[in-house]
């Protein structure tokens, strides 16, 4: 069932539609909230409050945006408020202009001395392989903010650069840089995992 169908069931009071939406989006809400608030526990609270706000506001939801966009906007607004109360400053990547592939993998001329181990075959032909998907998921979970929230929205939830920028109040250029750095980090972690296992 897609979100719109679940929403319809939820409006009719269907508990299983609610738990399905929770399963679909709760972890994304927590990651997005974590960008704004000071602790994992506090992010969990924001996500929980978001669901309550959904229940309270669902009859007023007019469907002018998708459910996902509406949900994320509620979450961001709440997280922002909580973050301000906690006097937390929004995290920025401390190495924003540094290289995304460690320098020791290149020779002095800037060419690979330790080239990437192609995991093309492994990952492309085994996209359904749980081990591979788990490696990617673990890698995203291991990202620091702001990369975790931004990569989750852009690549896991499939929002456009523009949508992510509008949602988080960042410039599109900034989103592109964060996505670039986050993806590079995920690739690095997955590469390590693939080296370790014999996929």
């Amino acid at each position, binding site marked *: 069932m897609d979100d719109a169908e679940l929403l319809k069931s939820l409006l009719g*009071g269907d*508990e299983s539609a*609610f*738990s399905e939406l*929770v*399963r*679909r*989006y*709760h*972890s*994304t809400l927590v990651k997005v909230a974590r960008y704004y608030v000071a602790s994992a526990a506090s992010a969990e609270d924001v996500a*929980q409050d978001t*669901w*309550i706000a959904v*229940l*309270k506001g669902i009859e007023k939801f007019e469907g002018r945006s998708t459910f996902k966009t509406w949900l994320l906007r509620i979450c961001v607004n709440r997280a922002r408020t909580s973050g301000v109360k906690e006097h937390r400053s929004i995290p920025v990547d401390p190495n924003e202009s540094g*290289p*995304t*592939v460690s*320098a020791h993998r*290149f020779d002095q*001329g*800037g*060419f*690979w001395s330790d*080239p*990437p*181990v*192609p*995991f*093309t075959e492994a*990952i*492309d032909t085994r*996209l359904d392989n749980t081990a*591979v*998907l788990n490696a*990617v*998921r673990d890698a*995203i979970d291991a990202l620091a903010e702001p990369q975790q929230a931004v*990569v989750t929205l852009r*690549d*896991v939830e*499939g929002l456009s*650069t523009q949508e992510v920028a509008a949602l988080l109040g960042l410039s599109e250029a900034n989103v*592109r840089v964060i*996505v*670039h750095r986050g*993806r*590079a980090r*995920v*690739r690095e972690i*997955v*590469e390590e995992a693939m080296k370790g296992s014999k996929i």
Partner: protein
Amino acid sequence: MKLLPSPLVCRDAVELVSDYLDGTLSRRQRRRLEKHLAQCDACSAYLDQMRATIAASGTVGPEDLPSEVVEGLVNLFRQYRADE
């Protein structure tokens, strides 16, 4: 006379890959990168890895939530319905 863009080295090529896949490089940058990729297997492998990583990110699907988290929220739902 127009200056020819200097050829890319791998260290700089990898920094363009994400924008390349998103289609947001300038035409000039894209040409420089494509020229490099055409003759560099290692950076082509890097590009493939990045493409695969992004594709996998889009298919990982929702995380398995701990059942107590789902139960806690479903309880909130019941409470909310009961109070209504």
